[in-house]
């Protein structure tokens, strides 16, 4: 009996949707749009915060500087020594000449302010675990054990900066998402309310015929649910499409910068970051 009622009530929702074609369409449209906007924002925020949070993992590196004008062979020896350490994943030598060239490219203002190359040879040490960075860097600072090491820099500062950035993005983006979430709930709620208003008289008749509140409400809820789900699916499709467009646009504008990471946001953020130095 209850099962019979349930199938009837589900059928009711279906009939309502079909027989109120245009009204259903209007409600569906509103829900779709609202969900698309919400989803788009959530996704962007997620990607941004994801990106910022993933960055520290790249900072499992330590820069080890050799004394100025040190011979190249010493750098080579040190490289091999460090390579044997169990904590170390990889070591790369960046010679002072290479470093200067990169600096000339990235910071022309600065290099033109220098009349000769003041840089030192550098070993980029990549550890297996980002958590070991501080401790390992400290051990390298022992002058007795490593006489050929002039300065050791771990990524402490950058990590803190990036975590800070991630925090800003998450709080602002999160606030935005919460605001939009409330807005979306509100809009969907209002939309359902409007479709209910349009049936005020019908609901009164049903009550007079002895329908329980749930008997009246369930088809309306199912209808709303259907609009919500359909809206969500269409919204998802729209977002994928929009994401694709944005990705294409960003790639076309900044192709040299967007090689590695395929997500639109990453490309966007990478495109901006080099300019941010001022």
């Amino acid at each position: 009996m209850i099962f019979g009622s349930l199938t009837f009530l589900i059928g009711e929702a279906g009939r309502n949707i079909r027989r109120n074609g245009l009204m259903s369409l209007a409600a569906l449209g509103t829900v779709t749009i609202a969900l698309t906007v919400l989803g788009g924002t959530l996704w962007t925020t997620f990607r941004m915060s994801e990106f910022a949070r993933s960055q520290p993992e790249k900072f499992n590196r330590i820069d080890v500087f050799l004394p100025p004008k040190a011979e190249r062979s010493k750098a080579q020896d040190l490289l091999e020594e460090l390579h044997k350490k169990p904590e170390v994943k990889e070591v790369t030598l960046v010679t002072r000449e290479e470093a200067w060239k990169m600096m000339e490219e990235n910071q022309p203002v600065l290099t033109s302010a220098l009349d000769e190359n003041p840089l030192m040879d550098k070993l980029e040490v990549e550890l297996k675990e980002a958590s070991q960075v501080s401790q390992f860097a400290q051990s390298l600072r022992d002058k007795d054990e490593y006489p050929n090491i002039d300065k050791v820099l771990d990524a402490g500062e950058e990590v803190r900066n990036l975590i800070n950035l991630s925090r800003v993005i998450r709080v602002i983006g999160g606030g935005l998402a919460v605001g939009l979430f409330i807005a979306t709930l509100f809009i969907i709620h209002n939309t359902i309310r409007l479709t209910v208003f349009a049936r005020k008289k019908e609901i009164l008749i049903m009550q007079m015929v002895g329908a329980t509140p749930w008997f009246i409400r369930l088809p309306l809820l199912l209808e709303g649910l259907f609009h919500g789900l359909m809206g969500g699916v269409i919204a998802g499709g729209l977002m994928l499409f929009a994401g694709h467009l944005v990705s294409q646009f960003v790639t076309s504008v900044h192709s040299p910068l967007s090689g590695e990471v395929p997500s639109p946001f990453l490309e966007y953020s990478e495109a901006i970051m080099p300019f941010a130095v001022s």
Partner: protein
Amino acid sequence: MIDLKGVGVTYSNGWRALSNVQLKIDKGEFVFVVGTTGAGKSTLLKLLSREETATEGTVKVSGQDLSSLPLHDLPAYRRKIGIVFQDFGLLPNKTVYENVAFALQVTGASRQTIRRQVPYVLDLVAMSHRPDAFPNQLSGGEQQRVAIARALVNEPFLLLADEPTGNLDPETSLGIMQLLNHINLRGTTVIIATHDQAVVDFLQRRVIAFDQGGLVRDEVVGNYRATEAQEETA
């Protein structure tokens, strides 16, 4: 079964639609409610269907005081009575068949019951030829008959009909009234508000008359109009 004591209804805008109504109706009775327009006939029926509540006095049906009926028992109460509304009250988005079936659906009736009962009552009111029409595809009289079918379908113990033949020609009216009479003879209490003098005079059942909110006449066997003797005593 129905017992009204000192009942008055004052609508929220201050309009006094009924005052000091004393009325007893026994199980199985057949009652015509008559009176000029605005006399309070519909208000009386709305009291019995709990669409309105008395602002004075008590309305009891089967011993239950309707004004103290909890809200969550209301649907169950309404399923046991049948109501024919003055303005039909059909669901516009449902077909004739679905409108009648709906009154069974709310009771949780099985599919078999529905498939058996709905065509049966549609046949009783001579509407079985158009089960798939929507209300706005029907003439006034046809809608009225569908409304009657819906009220009959779950075999109520009390049938309230407000002007059930206002849109019907005299022959169809008499047919419908005889149908209601027939249903009454099977045990259902029937209360009909009507302006149809011919039918009231023809059937010779109990008649109660209202005037400006007051019960002015109550005859066990009566006509639409008061006899001269009564007019003198009134």
